[in-house]
């Protein structure tokens, strides 16, 4: 699997992409989508919700499995990719491009830098 260098990863298999000093986009990794299989359902939070890192912000379901989505950072939900909920299968085809949320926080850049980089995440996945 190919993990892009410009995004960062969590051990819960979410990723974060820094889009400005105060905003990150959030999605799930290639490993996550591959473990789940065909994704058929996605439940995302409302804009404005305050999240803590590792707090559940939504649910993703494949045909076989239900899995919680955990926030990679503290912050407020600034934007939700609502179109994705009607075509959740897009996550399978483009996991690192299809973002679910934008989370806004003054410490976005700092929190982003504490997450695993592509090399660290790659070896973490291999160790599983």
């Amino acid at each position, binding site marked *: 699997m190919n993990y892009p260098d410009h995004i960062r990863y969590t051990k819960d298999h979410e990723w974060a992409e820094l889009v400005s000093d105060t905003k990150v986009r959030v999605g799930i990794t290639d490993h996550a989508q591959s473990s789940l*299989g*065909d994704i*058929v*359902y996605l*439940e995302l939070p409302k804009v404005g919700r305050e999240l803590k890192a590792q707090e559940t912000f939504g*649910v993703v*379901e*494949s*045909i*076989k499995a*239900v899995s919680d989505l955990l926030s990679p950072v503290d912050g407020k939900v600034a934007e939700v990719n609502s179109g994705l*909920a009607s075509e959740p299968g897009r996550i399978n085809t483009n996991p690192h491009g299809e973002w679910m949320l934008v989370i806004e926080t003054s410490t976005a850049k700092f929190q982003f830098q504490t997450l695993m980089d592509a090399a660290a995440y790659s070896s973490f996945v291999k160790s599983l």
Partner: protein
Amino acid sequence: MSMLKRTSLFEEHQRLGGKMVDFGGWELPVQYSGVTQEHLAVRNACGIFDVSHMGELLVKGPGALEFVNFVTTNDASTLSVFQAQYSAFCNESGGIIDDLVVYRLGQEEFLLVVNASNTERDFQHLTNSLARFSGIRPDVTNESANYAQIALQGPKAAEVLQKLTQTDLKKISTYWSAEGLVLGEKALIARTGYTGEDGFELYLSPSSSQKVWRGLLEKGADVGLLPCGLGARDTLRLEMKYSLYGHELSDETNPLEVGLGWITKLSKPGGFIGKGSISDLKLQGPKRALVGIASLGRGIPRQGYLVYDSSKSKHIGTVTSGTQSPSLKKAIGVCLIEKGFETTGTRVWVQIREDLHEFEVCKTPFLDLKKEK
């Protein structure tokens, strides 16, 4: 060290990139290319499944028919040699110990194909029942280790299998079987399955399973045959509302309430284990019903989720199985609910995590195969 059991096709699953999971103690593929793709291959062309984990119990010798009839709910005396029937083992209270397919292989020889995870328990049940059986006692043996089983399912199944056998498949009707050679290997070729589609289940020696599996992959490639995992097996059976032990069926459910009255022959001669309780239940009328529900919004019902009536305040039952239907592209489920709510069109609510989601009791099978084709 892995304690999981492996079938004779384990290396094939690895070679084909199957995603292996623990399924009731067996290491089996949940999928290869993807559940949706595999599911649709079976609906539109065909697919093959390794179902070698299923258990095979043989009842043979004088008294075989009478004993099979004593332990199963259906009437095996109606079977001709090589005919098959769906049936169940019940306990004295009428609870279901397992569901099974009975193949009559001879006048006094029956092959009972049971759920993998129940095989040991079923075999024990038969052995215990022999001691209580007043007639001539046949031999009962657990032959599971001597059988591999490949299910070939889908509208192109006969076309593909015919390329590998000289047995005339047109002469095998649904729920009949024949002994034949598949790629020169001895097999029981049964026109049975668990998908709703036409298809076959091949009972083979484990040593010949790899050759037949590869032959099917090769001869089926041009019609779109795919190897299919347990994921697709589950969505295919669910679209037909076929029951699965541990979901719809358990020791706590009786055949009448789960829609298996048709395989419960209370008037067959000799009686059977559980008959007394099931007869009483029939007089009282079943208290619950097994119904199909379809989503009116979003949200997928899953086993164990609670079901409420239209007022959202009365708990009326529980979801036994649910999924996103790959054919219908909507969420469907099966639930065991109180009688009185089973009419098609009845609105019910299913609790999915914190929220209630609206569903409608619908006609089943969910998928009308005649209409689709």
